[in-house]
């Protein structure tokens, strides 16, 4: 039997026993445990905090995405409304322009020669515009249109610019160059159409003649 006094106190070992007796004086005296405080701190569960954090993060991200979606939808709606408004209310805005602003600024036309540094070309263009405006005014007056509805040269220009912006350009369809076969087919089709057209013409003439003849015959019978 293997005895190990040092490990499990089985058997005998005088040397270790002597050391035990020698060091016995340092042994712990029987003391009581410290008294606990009356109130016990209850700490929140960490796992709950974690789950709450995750849930909060998910909810926040969902809310943010929802808000962004709403924002994007609003922008889309506003764009559509703006398009509609610009198409429907464009003339109204021109109508509501005050009377003073509806005249061409005379300062440009009546500027003294020495101060007028604009090139001669600009002058002639403005004069032309003024004449066209006068013509337009007279034409409108002849058609008994209310004076407030008359558009000035500036406003006409603005309106033209607005129209240019607002009117959507129709995409031009590119015509494909025809191949030889297609050209031949096209010619054949034209020929066939011309033949059928001529035939139809003959038929039409015959029908009209017949109608005329019948009418004559009927008239004769009536007179008889």
């Amino acid at each position: 039997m293997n005895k190990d006094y040092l490990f499990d106190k089985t058997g005998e070992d005088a040397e270790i026993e002597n050391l035990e007796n020698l060091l016995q004086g340092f042994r712990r005296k029987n003391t009581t445990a410290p008294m606990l405080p009356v109130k016990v701190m209850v700490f929140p569960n960490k796992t709950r905090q974690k789950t709450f954090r995750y849930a909060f993060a998910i909810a926040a991200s969902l809310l943010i995405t929802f808000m962004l979606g709403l924002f994007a939808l609003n922008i889309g709606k506003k764009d559509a409304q703006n398009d509609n408004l610009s198409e429907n209310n464009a003339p109204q805005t021109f109508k509501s322009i005050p009377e003073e602003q509806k005249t061409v600024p005379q300062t440009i036309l009546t500027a003294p020669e020495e101060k007028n540094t604009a090139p001669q070309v600009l002058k002639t263009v403005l004069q032309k515009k003024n004449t066209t405006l006068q013509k337009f005014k007279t034409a409108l007056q002849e058609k008994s249109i209310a004076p407030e509805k008359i558009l000035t040269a500036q406003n006409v220009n603005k309106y033209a610019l607005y129209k240019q912006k607002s009117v959507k350009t129709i995409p031009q369809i590119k015509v494909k160059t025809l191949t030889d076969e297609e050209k031949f087919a096209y010619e054949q089709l034209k020929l066939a159409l011309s033949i059928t057209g001529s035939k139809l013409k003959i038929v039409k003439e015959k029908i009209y003649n017949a109608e005329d003849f019948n009418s004559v015959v009927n008239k004769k019978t009536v007179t008889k």
Partner: protein
Amino acid sequence: MSETRMPDNIFFLADRKQTKENRFFAEEISAEEKLVQDICNGNQTAFDELYRRFSPMIYSIILSRSPRDEVADLVQEVFLTAYQNIKTLREPKAIGGWLAIIARNQAAEFYRKSKPTEELSEDLSHAGSRKNEAKEVLDIIKSLPEAYKETLIMRLVEGLTGNEIAEQTGLTPESVRVNLHRGMKLLREKLGIAGK
């Protein structure tokens, strides 16, 4: 020829695992976890039980690292610190090792805070007496490596067996045995005793 016995149930591994788990949970709930739960609820008797079970180990650890006069106070501080932080203990089974760490930290903190002092002999007039001899032996044990001095003090001063030391510190009995024998060998060399 050795007979190989086939298991009746092909899922014997799963069954074995399940029973092992059940046993593990049963033990955990019955002993350390209940003790920790009771302490968390402010049960004084549970705390007394903890003190009774682990104070020899804590005392030995602190004695191996700090002056003898301070040991009693430091032991009390260790248990109070343990009580304050018991909620941070994740594994109730490892409470022994956890307390040992607190004790080591407490001893280190004591040395960090206090000014260096020279410990005087309790009885200078009785030079060469048995008490002084004991103190000398204790000082020699304290000079040994950490793993050896703690286990030797637990064994020689507190009188714990190897299995009790293993149970309280969380070490395996084999490693405790090794530590004891190696520590004893070093102690013999330092004391000038011819060992076996």
